[in-house]
């Protein structure tokens, strides 16, 4: 499966509402690489351009905010 390529500034964004059809996962359910990705994004650190394999477009990740994967 090919990996998505997501520029840093568009990879994740905070959202207030979640569509009922969204795939929603808590931070604890992510792979280690996806957790590192979220932590880096939340810390404004450099984020890899390649989205981790277990994150896909329109996913929502529950962290300290709800984060939508662009």
């Amino acid at each position, binding site marked *: 499966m090919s990996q998505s390529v997501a520029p840093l500034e568009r990879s994740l964004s905070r959202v207030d509402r*979640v569509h*009922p*059809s*969204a*795939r*929603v*996962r*808590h*931070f*604890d*359910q992510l792979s*280690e690489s996806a*957790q*590192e990705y979220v*932590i*880096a994004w*939340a*810390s404004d*650190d450099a984020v890899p351009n390649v989205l981790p394999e277990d994150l896909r477009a329109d996913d*929502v990740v*529950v*962290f*300290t905010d*709800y984060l939508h994967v662009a």
Partner: protein
Amino acid sequence: MTESYVIIGDGIAGSSAAETLREEAPDADITVITDEGEALYNRILIKEFAKGKLPEAPISIHDESWYDERDVELRLNTHVKNLDPDAHTLETHEEEVIDYDKLLVATGGTPTQLPVDNSDAEGIHHFWTFQDARRIKESAESGEKAVIVGAGLLGIDLAAISGAQDIEAKYLMRGDAWWRYALSVEGAEIMHNAMRDIGVEPVFGSGVDHFETDDDGHVTAAVDPNGDRFECDWAGVAIGLNFNTEILQGTSVKQDGGVVVDQHMQSSVDDIYAAGDLTRFYDTILGEYGQNGSWGSAKEQGTIAAKNMVDPESAEFRWVSSYSITHFDFPFLSFGHPTIGDDEVEKKYSDTEYRRLALKDGKIVGGVLIGDLAPQSAYKRLMKEERVVGDQKEVLMQKKFDPDDLAPTQEQ
């Protein structure tokens, strides 16, 4: 002859086992039995539903078609009342006898009730199932005051639900700090302040002596051992789990504060395995038996058990668990076994940033990170490698921790 695998429990441990069994044994008969009325749902996210932030639909993980597609027989609302390990059979509440070649017990637990008067009153909630979350949400949306009991990882979820639902809540704790077995008072104070910020007031040296009720049997107040009275429209209690091991009574499956299994998830009785919250497993990293109730650990245990049910002793459970709290402006994460060890090191970096590592024989066995979770992967790796680092505490506590800064391990 076709192998027959039966799984009791459709939480993440049972479900991951079913998925793995189908991959490893394409022709086997696989049956999943659960006394719940719904298939696997996302237990981690039910707190978000109860907070009123997440709709119900995304909580569901598997619908019944998931089982059909994998040719797994799912039996909802089915209670197993008897198990005969010698005959390799179990009996359901409808007195149906089901044969198995290999059995996985993944029945989890049931919240412990407070041993005080009126603890079963209307409006007193425990928080474990989706149904619990629905009831808590209903109470939170109609009430104004709540009492929370249980100063641990589940209790703080109830506190966060109260905060999100604009409930004025008192969080009654017996000791002087939240999760005092894993955090110092200094570290816990960061969490206390976060609770206060959302309208939840920690009350220390407290607890519950009894609950008061109205004429309809609905809770109206909690009274603590000091005689202080806390009015409430509902109460949330999270003081622990009783493991659902009734079906093992009368069998010789060894239990010791949980179902004892080896690193292959094999119990003391042939062809019976266990996975998930209810296990007391041999932790190959610690070199002793341990317990863990995290989602990731349960999922991995289910997978490992399934592999060994198909091919005995082919896979070993070797896992550093973690559990995060994401209710506040800053994240919190615990990993491994932060409540054990013979040594520790901690550091507070700011009002919202703190770390503590638990060490045993110089090795990291667990820890807590508040604020900055970036070092978690490195700490977990050191733990898994069983590397002796207890003599390098300053390096471990560097704000930007880099494992390359650690002195090389000395050859013994």
